[in-house]
């Protein structure tokens, strides 16, 4: 390879050394070459503009390197020029599948800094809306994982269930994906008449249809062959990279911010935290499905015990955070979402550092993808529930 540019030579050296199979060039017999396959950024299976530089030897991946940043929109700089209500409306576009969960840490952070007490009714409604959004998010990943494996039918079932919940959220907030509903101190406005029944009915419908999904996917032998013992994420690796959410719990990291450091009124609800013990694709998927059941439980409890009262605490007319800094962690459907808010007293934040779950989750990919097949790579990418807006902000 005389015409290889100098800068790439260490890379190529790496390629040949780290081949898992005996690359029999040295023996002089079979000459095989490793191929550099560029998966993405335009690819149907990569959840967006995600690029994976895969070095493959036949069908086996020798090395995989994720390249992110194709969707970087400069959120952390954007929000320095906007006041808190404008940020609330913009931030749900970060992880667009769980829109309202993105607004939550911001509202909580401001409440902590400004020492506002949020009325009970607002807390309960916040929990209900956040959990409904979690169900939406998980249904979306359920269908995308199935579609990447080749099962085209669950997509339509999942979207049908999502419709009802989205309609319920539309009656409250006016939007189906981007809500802009949480304010520091409570909610923008109260819920319309009939919302409780509508929300409960839609959530119950999802639960009623879950056995269908179990039959279609988790009970399917082909699905099990494609996902069991595929893409095992080692627990230690997951810990060191800060993998959280269904992916972390699938690797038996028993961590859930809602239970460990309850915010809002989560300590008043009774729900389980599902964990998987093997860390493979099947376990992650299992955790995803069962989190839907747990979220539905929380929604039922929240709406059943909805107290009367105002939905906004005592908030000054102009929201100005006093000088200070605060870090708030919440359980985004994809993992742990953290907002580090630094304020120098004013209508705009001085700095918000956003710790997104997908960024950390994606960093664990190279370890999972080593020594797997190309077809498994698709399954693994599908099971690593990440949203590019969350990875890149």
């Amino acid at each position, binding site marked *: 390879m005389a015409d290889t540019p100098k800068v790439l030579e260490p890379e190529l050296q790496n390629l040949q050394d780290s081949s898992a199979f005996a690359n029999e060039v040295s023996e002089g017999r079979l000459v095989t070459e490793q191929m550099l396959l560029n998966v993405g950024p335009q690819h149907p299976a990569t959840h967006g503009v995600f690029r994976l530089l895969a070095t493959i030897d036949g069908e086996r991946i020798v090395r995989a390197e994720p390249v992110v940043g194709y969707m970087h929109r400069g959120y952390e700089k954007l929000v320095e020029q906007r006041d808190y209500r404008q940020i609330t*409306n*913009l931030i749900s576009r970060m992880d667009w599948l769980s829109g309202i969960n993105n607004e939550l840490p911001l509202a909580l952070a401001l409440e902590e800094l400004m020492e506002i007490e949020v009325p009970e*009714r607002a807390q309960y409604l916040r929990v209900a809306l956040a959990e409904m959004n979690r169900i939406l998010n998980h249904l979306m990943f359920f269908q995308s994982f199935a579609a990447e494996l080749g099962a085209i039918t669950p997509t339509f079932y999942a979207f049908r269930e999502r419709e009802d919940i989205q309609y319920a959220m539309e*009656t409250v907030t006016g939007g189906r994906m981007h809500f802009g509903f949480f304010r520091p101190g409570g909610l*923008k406005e109260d819920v319309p008449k009939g919302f*409780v029944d509508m929300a409960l*009915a839609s959530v119950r419908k999802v639960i009623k249809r879950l056995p269908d999904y179990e039959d279609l996917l988790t009970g*399917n032998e082909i699905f099990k062959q494609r996902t069991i013992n595929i893409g095992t994420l080692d627990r230690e690796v997951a810990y060191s990279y800060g993998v959280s959410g269904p992916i972390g719990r699938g690797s038996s990291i028993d961590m859930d911010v809602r239970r460990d450091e309850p915010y809002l009124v989560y300590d008043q609800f009774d729900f389980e935290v599902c964990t998987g013990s093997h860390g493979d694709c099947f376990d992650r998927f299992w955790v995803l499905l*069962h989190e839907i059941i747990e979220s539905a439980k929380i929604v039922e409890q929240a709406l059943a015990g909805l107290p009367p009262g105002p939905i906004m605490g005592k908030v000054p007319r102009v929201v100005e955070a006093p000088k200070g800094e605060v870090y708030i962690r919440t359980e985004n459907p994809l993992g742990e979402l953290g907002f580090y808010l630094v304020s120098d007293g004013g209508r705009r934040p001085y700095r918000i550092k956003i710790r997104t779950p997908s960024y950390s989750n994606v960093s664990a990919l190279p370890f999972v993808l080593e020594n797997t097949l190309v077809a498994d790579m698709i399954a693994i990418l599908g099971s690593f529930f990440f949203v590019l807006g969350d990875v890149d902000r």
Partner: protein
Amino acid sequence: MALDVDQRLEKARRPGFGVGLLKGMAVLLKHLFKRNDVIQYPEVKQDLSPRTRGVIALKEENCTVCMLCARECPDWCIYIDSHKETLPPKREGGRPRKRNVLDRFAIDYALCMYCGICVEVCPYDALFWSREFEYAEYDIRQLTHEKEKLSDWMSTVLPPIELEDGADIPGLPTKAISAASASPTVEATAASPANVTSSAAEARPEQAQTAPREASAATTSARPAETAPDAPTGPAPETAKEASGLAEEVKEQQMDAAAEPAAEPEVKRDTQGTVQAEGSQAEVEAKAESETPSAPESTAVTQTPPAMAPVPDQAPAATPTPTRPVPKLEDLEAPEDAYGRVLDEQTKAGSSPQVAEARAKVARVKAEREVTRAKAAASQDATPAPEPSGAPEATEPQPEQGPVAPTEEERGAGSAGPQEQTGAGSAGPQEQTGAGSAGPQEQKGTKGPND
């Protein structure tokens, strides 16, 4: 607990022997024979909720060109131009008044991100949400709607919707949530004094936040709370477990019919344990189907709107059906007595004098209205005056008429322009009555304690 999940997981991981494949196929076969609930747009359109963020409409008379919306917009997509005019003084010897006159108000919908901050922040209720979304254009410059087009959108704006039980409506005591309570009237229900004071205390920062808005908000949200929609008579139960009586079934049906066009009867069976719902569901469907064929221009709906949009089904020109039983004159409380009673109650409950007086005034005005209604009914007048609402009445969007020369009166009324702040307003589909169009300059109807 965690052990329990683990065992289920282990069981799921065990190899089946082809049985799972057959089960999967059975699911598909089951769905092959199920009823399809696809809404075939554009012949049939989904009935969107009233709060759906479609397009923003402008009520020009209310705009005082304070520029708050343009300032707060995160995308800077609102373009406002204005100039100052000097008007002669109102009375002899007064000083000349200055007015802001709106020259241009445009919203660039190509930039707009439909967040609603402008609607939320407008202190004079000049911007409203509408649920229209079908305004795509071939030329992106047409997406900048000028104030004429924005005013046209006003005819599609719906009145604000009734809030769920337990919501805190400023100016009123918090309604307790109970399945047993009947019609949501505005009498002082069994609200504990603590509740009253706390809601009063909460009401005050809200008032501070949105001072001129609270007036119309109080009137508008109080009124839909009074006028309950026809069929459902009970408030929504907290959980469907508490469902009781036919009212709940009817309500459930209406909501299910509205929200889930093909809600399976099994859902209702689970929640209510009756099979009656199925038959009624078929009725609702039959009604919905008969409404389905419609002209392509008008907005067709598959089902009657849910209980949350108290929009009259008929054209507004027709007689509005009375939504409350008309009281008899003898049974009614005299307005002054109502004032005194509420004042006593509130003072005993510990409200501040201003709040007590405000609530007493509200009760007095309400009693006056009841008296007027009773008198009108007694005098064989079959058409009680429609209650004025803060927001404009919703009308069916009229098909485009094309250019029509304005008639004499329209031209005459148009030239008088925004300077006429009477209840009559201008001609056309934007007929506004009552407190809404008066805006902040003329204080009519019930207002807050700032009277």
